């Protein structure tokens, strides 16, 4: 028989050494991770395309299909202007680097 779950403490500590932190349910956490993934996929579409391009060649048609999908996705995001934020930030960093 499995051991009973931890009793809920009055002030749940994340772990030894950490101060108290609030807890969520798994459903809330999954929603947040899903939303985060979606926003990152929109704004960082270029990185996803690079990732698909660098997949092992041994994956064959799967790699080609993934790359085609990632490339199309990135093209849409460029057309929408969603990748503009990343481009502006990269340009700002480059400007600071060579100041």
């Amino acid at each position, binding site marked *: 028989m*499995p*051991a*009973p*779950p*931890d009793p*809920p403490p009055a002030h*749940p*500590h*994340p*772990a*030894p*050494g*950490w*101060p*108290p*932190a*609030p*807890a*969520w*349910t*798994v459903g*809330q*956490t*999954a*929603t*947040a*991770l*899903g*939303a*985060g*993934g*979606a*926003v*990152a*996929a*929109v*704004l*960082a579409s270029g*990185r*996803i395309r690079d*990732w698909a391009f660098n997949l092992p060649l041994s994956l064959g048609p799967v790699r080609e299909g993934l790359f085609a999908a990632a490339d199309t996705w990135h093209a849409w995001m460029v057309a929408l202007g969603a990748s503009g*934020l*990343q*481009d502006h*930030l*990269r340009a700002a*960093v480059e400007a*600071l*680097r*060579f*100041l």
Partner: protein
Amino acid sequence: MLFPTIDFALFFLVVFAASWALYRQPAGRKTLLVAASYVFYGYWDWRFCLLLAGSSVVNWAAGRAIDALDDPRQRRIVTGLAVAANLGVLGLFKYYGFFIRSLNDLFYSIGLERELPFLEIILPVGISFFTFQGISYVVDVHRGEVRAQRSLLNVLLYISFFPQLVAGPIVRASTFMPQIERPRDPDRVLATFGIVLILAGLFKKMVIANYLATEMVDLVFLDPFFYGPVDLLLAVYGYAVQIYCDFSAYSDIAIGVAALLGYRFPKNFDQPYRAQSLREFWRRWHISLSTFLRDYLFIPLGGSRPDARGRTRTARNLMITMVLGGVWHGAAWTFVFWGVLHGAGLVVERWLGLGRVDGERSLWRRVLAGVVVFHFVCLAWIFFRAETFDIALTYLAGFARLDAPIEFATPFVLVLLAAGFAGQLLPPDLPARVAGRLRPLPPVALGALAGLTLAVIDALAPAGVAPFIYFQF
């Protein structure tokens, strides 16, 4: 599989969903997490999985044997054998080549031409971490701090759990095993805390550590002969910030990922460059290793004793502990010397009565102590980072090369250093505070904010994925 990659993000999303889908079946969930951990580890080289599994089985069997024995002497023997087996594996894979090279050099220097056989052995990623976890399990069972596990699955998960498998933190059996034994509660996931830690870790690693490495530190340490005192000073400050941001980032991400899966890991870094003594530094730097060495090596050696004879023994114990701590990081004389420096520093600090920091110190004394400790730590980092002793000595000699031009005092490098040091001055409970502030947000809004932050970090980071420094240990 590296944390700041899309491969890991996809892997984690699948593991997160599948593991929580199985929360009503603890054995199934643990099996899934073990399988995921072996996939994560096998991503580097699947052959290492055999070593990992072998290590887990040996430690599990040792725990069972210790538990079954009543005779304290026999229990000690089995514990000793298990610890020796763990250290033997570590020694073979990590130190065999080093000792053979050192012995051959010694033979050569005394005129013996005989060469001992050299084997090219690949160093399995994270071996120093998972062997220490194995030692923690058998010693904690021996001490009665954790129950010997009937379930091999529990020990497999304890030793292989992927967030901390390859670069820590070294989570003690007495901390982690009770969490493995009990089902995780799906209504108490430290989501905001975990997400904040992961994003903070990604920023520290991908932006600060990677840029400092590529823009300055790697160049200067490659050949310090070409640089003058200002650049050398900036580069060692840069390395101090880089290694902190790199390693603490890995720990933060590991703790955050574990939190999202329902497990709670202890803090591994606590703003170490604020320390006013070396003793305090070691209470703030790589806490899981320093407490491991304290509890499993320093104290069993005799620890510290206040009497006159005890002072010598304390010094000996400190030196042994710190030298072995240095060797743990890598098989090279530079790491040995790094340990010697820290050991000697701790001994001198104790003799001068500077180790204990009380609240009575005036502000200027606190600042002065912090500056002195930081620069001592930086001096030791030169030996830690340099490829060879000669390079470290060249580095130190360069501080007298006053006519060399200044290359790296650029606004970009100074901003990176300032950002790195700023992290030492922020409130230590900031992640939990931020998590508390974000808690009332709807999950979709928090997720969108996290996704935006991730995209910004990605845009600010240099191209490519640099491995974490502590992977090589």
